[in-house]
């Protein structure tokens, strides 16, 4: 991501954050109208969690088809970012719940499903950490990610809709769901976070590539040099 795009992204997200305070009115009808505005920050974090795990599944599938180590690195980077956004969505959601529902944690279906989701992807990192051999690790974690993906879809899109929940459903895409000012701010913040996601993803990938180069260099340095006769010196 070049410097200009980074600066524009920074200006955009700062602008949206300021607008959320100065332009967005408190939401009447909530127990705490001031704090109800938390949704414009909380929901985009939850949406980015889905996007990141979707990217993880896409690159895992690509890895199994191409066996290209770079796609495995991309899948890993996306899963790491998915976890970061899941944590942010959980923490901001708890603050919302504390103000609106009287308790930071209510074991609501969506709260429970995000905890399950984080456990599913924590197991992905445990799996990656447990296998030493690089290609085996990539293969196993890609297969696991493809199994985790339908579980993620079920936990995010289906489970909260089939049981009674404190969270409303179908508010993002229906015209009657959100006040226009809330919709504009929420989607603008999502756009800004998406740009930040791309930024973080690329930086994470550069770290993976640098680590791989260092490993290669170490292997080269520690390997005995071969003589023309095939003997080692």
């Amino acid at each position: 991501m070049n410097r200009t795009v980074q600066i524009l992204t920074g200006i955009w997200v700062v602008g949206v954050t300021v607008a959320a305070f100065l332009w967005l009115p408190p939401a009447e009808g909530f127990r705490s109208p001031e704090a109800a505005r938390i949704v414009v920050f909380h929901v985009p974090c939850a949406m980015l969690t889905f996007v990141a795990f979707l990217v993880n599944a896409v690159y895992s599938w690509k890895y199994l088809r191409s066996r290209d180590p770079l796609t495995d690195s991309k899948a890993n980077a996306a899963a790491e970012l998915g976890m970061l956004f899941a944590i942010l969505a959980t923490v901001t959601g708890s603050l919302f719940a504390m103000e609106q529902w009287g308790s930071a944690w209510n074991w609501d279906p969506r709260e429970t499903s995000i905890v399950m989701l984080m456990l599913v992807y924590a197991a992905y990192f445990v799996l990656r950490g447990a296998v030493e051999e690089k290609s085996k690790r990539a293969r196993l974690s890609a297969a696991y990610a493809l199994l985790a993906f339908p579980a993620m879809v079920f936990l995010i899109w289906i489970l909260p809709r089939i049981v009674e929940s404190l969270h409303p459903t179908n508010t993002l895409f229906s015209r009657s769901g959100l006040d226009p000012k809330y919709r504009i701010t929420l989607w603008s913040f999502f756009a800004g976070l998406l740009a930040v996601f791309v930024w973080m993803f690329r930086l994470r990938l550069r770290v993976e590539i640098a680590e791989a180069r260092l490993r290669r260099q170490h292997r080269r340095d520690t390997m005995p040099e071969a003589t023309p006769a095939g003997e080692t010196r």
Partner: protein
Amino acid sequence: MNPLLTYMIVPLLIWAGIFGYLFWLDMRLRALEKRLEEEGHR
């Protein structure tokens, strides 16, 4: 807690999380690049 204060904490938490992660990545990348450079000279 004051609802307005709770509302103010939320974006701060998000940006602290994101910039914390970016900062950690940047530090790691710099350290790796330095090591690569050092080992390249050796």
